């Protein structure tokens, strides 16, 4: 049995990478994973894979595991309020079960 955690996923524009990362850090999350990604949404197809002249068309996906839901919601709120009016973005939260992670689960394991 692993440790139940919340997985917050934020998909947004690559140029916001540093700013979103800072928000996550400030909220007190222990870490996050970032992936380069692409897809289609209300702002049409982004990151279609062609060489793009600048990063303005690239997307990233943040995955943040938090053990309490408040932190995840705090991050999602701040990102939405600060960026989602003007930038492409979506965020969602799901339940996860962390199986192995030393720091996240503590010294005794998950």
């Amino acid at each position, binding site marked *: 049995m692993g440790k139940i955690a919340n997985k917050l996923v934020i998909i947004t524009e690559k140029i916001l990478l540093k700013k979103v990362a800072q*928000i996550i850090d400030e909220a007190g999350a222990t870490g996050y994973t970032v992936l380069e990604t692409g897809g289609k949404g209300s702002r049409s197809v982004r990151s279609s894979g062609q060489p793009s002249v600048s990063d303005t068309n690239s997307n990233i996906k943040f995955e943040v595991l938090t053990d309490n839901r408040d932190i*995840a919601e705090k991050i*999602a709120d701040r990102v*939405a*309020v600060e960026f989602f009016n003007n930038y492409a973005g979506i965020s969602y939260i799901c339940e996860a079960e962390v199986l192995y992670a030393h720091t996240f689960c503590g010294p005794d394991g998950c």
Partner: protein
Amino acid sequence: MDFLSDFLTKFGAQLQSPTLGFLLGGIVIAALGSQLAIPDAIYKFIVFMLLIKVGLKGGIAIRESNLTEMLLPALFAAAIGILIVLIASYTLAKLPGIRATDALATGGLFGAVSGSTLAAGITVLDAQGIEYEAWAGALYPFMDIPALVTAIVLASIYTSKQKRDKYHKNEEYIRTETVAAGGYASEQIVPAGGYPTIDQRGTAGGYPGERGGSSGGSSSQPGDAPSQRVKIWPIVKESLQGSALSALLLGIALGLITRPESVVESFYEPLFRGLLSILMLIMGMEAWSRINELRKVAQWYALYAAVAPLLHGFIGFGLGMVAHYATGFTPGGVALLAVIAASSSDISGPPTLRAGIPSANPSAYIGASTAVGTPVAIAIGIPLFVGLSQVMM
């Protein structure tokens, strides 16, 4: 008549240059739906190579030349950068159906400088054996940064004025937007009620992203008083940290301080033209893929993007002529100043503007610049101004 036929022959010869050939080739191949893709990393590497070479040559030239000669062209470059944004704010922004922030961002992008167009201009001058000041490439930041700063400052002045007018409307708008944008997350938060912050931020923040300044992270401060002085330094810093300008400035510094002549001659110089041809191919493909975006915004952007590079180039050419008569700026240098003025940024400008004017629609300004502005500057601007400089002086 002699003048005109001479000019037309020179103009015609330019149209057959490999630079333009590859650009058009890229457009055609993308239009035909080719699967050809050049990896992003290669594109970035080429931009780095070209700009560091321009920088190295510039640095070496600055080391050997009289700095006072550079003063007037640099001053003109900065003036052109600011003027271009002002022109956009008095023409494009006044057209029907154009949002002022979009117009200012477009003006900023057209005022900023394109490394690829600059490199293409240098290649044409080299190929024809036309003399020019090697430090002319170093005029890039003098035009680029003032243009971006002016655009961002004007846009945030405009949005803060708008905000004062429509404060209550915005307040409602942002509430609905927050819920919509937050998706599932905020839906669950609102009933839970444990979040006083969402309320406070929603009302106080106004348009948090538009708070001006690329620092962006300042939106938690109460914004009731729209007392926003735009911080200029973060914009300048961001421009300088951009990939294009960093490479150029590193090149200049190395050219100034070290003796990189051997590596320039054996490595950067021979590769320059070949790499430029690949870059032109990419620019062509990119131009085609951005046309669709441009279609979604007002037609005025296409018109502006077609006319503006040439108008800006003529302004640059005129001021270059002044420098020519005042301090002996070479005709090649004048042509290069005109090309820099005609170019619109496609590498470092868009991310800076996206961060600095978040409310502007990137499809409008990037589409206008990449799909129309850059091809016009390279295909028409370079031959026009190089030819013109040869017959005028």
